[in-house]
């Protein structure tokens, strides 16, 4: 079996007396949409921090594209091809939607220690940004300041900005948070559309979206992965039902 693009090996993290993440091992295969689900407090957020490099694990290793990134800083992982979107929208609120994406494109296209030539002159940069905006469904909204966009549009912009860095793995942290049914549909379509270009690790609560999109699902409960498998397997898994889906059914 080929090396997974993201491999987490026995990773643990504790905060004081609380074990947030407990010997978690999982692998995300290239080209798949891998969903991570679990009840609130299961440790998903901590795991995301460990994957992106915001925190270091107490034990275990993280491998990205075969390389050991456990000790690497956030921006170094980004340079290797990891991108993430944020659960709580984190954009450049006073910049326009276009500029938000353009910044991400700028990051990977040459040095920004350039002091003289106006950025506005860089056609290629803005063309690419415009194209990306179109992909995430914000084509007509490019000059709107990000802070003024509707909530659903902001979530789409979040994904757009992450995509602009041309990542190999896209870590989506609850992209559907706070979205109504129409917006959720659009987001599901978007994630499905990018699947061909980038591997996706999707953290989500919206079960409908998860079961429609995911190739494989891992279930995190109390900091441990209790099951990994295809959606049907997970749906049928008794332990999962009891720990998680059981709560939903009840």
């Amino acid at each position: 079996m080929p090396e997974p693009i993201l491999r987490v090996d026995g990773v643990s993290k504790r905060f004081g007396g609380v074990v947030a993440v407990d010997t978690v091992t999982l692998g995300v295969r290239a080209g798949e949409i891998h969903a991570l689900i679990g009840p609130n407090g299961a440790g998903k957020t901590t795991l995301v921090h460990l994957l992106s490099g915001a925190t270091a694990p107490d034990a275990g290793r993280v491998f990205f594209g075969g390389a050991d990134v456990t000790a690497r800083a956030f921006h170094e992982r980004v340079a290797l091809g990891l991108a993430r979107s944020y659960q709580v929208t984190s954009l450049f609120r006073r910049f326009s939607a276009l500029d938000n994406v353009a910044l991400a494109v700028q990051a990977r296209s040459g040095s920004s220690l350039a002091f003289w030539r106006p950025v506005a002159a860089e056609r290629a940069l803005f063309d690419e940004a415009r194209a990306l905006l179109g992909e995430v469904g914000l084509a007509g909204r490019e000059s709107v300041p990000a802070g003024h966009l509707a909530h659903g549009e902001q979530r789409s912009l979040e994904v757009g900005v992450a995509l602009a860095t041309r990542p190999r793995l896209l870590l989506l942290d609850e992209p559907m948070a706070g979205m109504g049914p129409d917006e959720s549909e659009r987001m599901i379509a978007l994630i499905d559309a990018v699947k061909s270009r980038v591997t996706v690790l999707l953290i989500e609560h919206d079960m409908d979206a998860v079961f429609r999109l995911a190739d494989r699902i891992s279930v995190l409960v109390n900091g441990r992965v209790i099951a990994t498998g295809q959606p049907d397997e997970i749906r049928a898994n008794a332990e999962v039902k009891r720990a998680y889906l059981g709560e939903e059914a009840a």
Partner: protein
Amino acid sequence: MRRALSLAALAAAAAFPLVAQPLGWEFYVGFASRIMIYALAASSLNLILGYGGMLSFGHAAFVGAGAYVVGILMAEGVASAWVSWPLAIVVAGLLAAAVGAISLRTRGVYFIMITLAFAQMLYYIAVGMKAYGGEEGLNLATRSGVGLGLNLKDDATFYYVVLAILVAGLYGLHRLANARFGRVVEAIRENETRMEAIGFPTYRYKLVCFALGGAVAGLAGALLANQNSYVNPNLLYWTQSGSLMIMVILGGVGALYGGLLGAVALLVLEEVFSAYTIHWQLGVGTILLAIVLFAPQGLAGLFARRPDA
């Protein structure tokens, strides 16, 4: 519209010394030079504070460093501006790079404090330099020599040199703000975590910004030493850094002309009030307070309310 205003202001500034003579306003030519020098200093802080979002409370130290370079060289017999002014820029820039390298590892109020601390250290070093005046300060024998048939001792000539440098400086700031670097720095101010998430090594950019601001401050210091024909450790005291900050805030944080407008506003305000009363600080203080409380948008309209997070 803004273009037209800028050009008109430039034309007025260029014409000023010419009309000052017949109107008997020679004194004000020197005053105007002083305003422009502070405008340069405030603009260099604007780059760091306004565009970069770094609340540096020790900027006066870099201005002072530049001034002392000119003063010390003059005392040692080197009067050429072509030597001392570039050296002032380099020394101030290097100092800023050193201070920034350490300070930028901290955040929030700790950053403010540590920049303040470094500035105070430089202040005490200046006080300790007994060979160059110590607490009393150092008089400059003459203004820097520029050659080219120009005599900086003539107030009008000095005025034009300062004006040229200020215009160049502001133009440079304008280019920088619109270039890739400016964008990055402004975006870091807006949301540093996201910039890291996109792949920018934010520390590096902040450091370069900080050093650049310090370097230009050094140039302002060199001009200031010439303007006063005197350097003195008070140039580096924390209240001077405070004044520079006030100018930037008044004029408009992150606005191109923020430093200029703020310097003009504060210095003119001081001058006007001093003409009426020795208690001019009371008037200036009250106006500043009123502006903060009732006109939160500042002069160029770019204050920010505290973000929610």
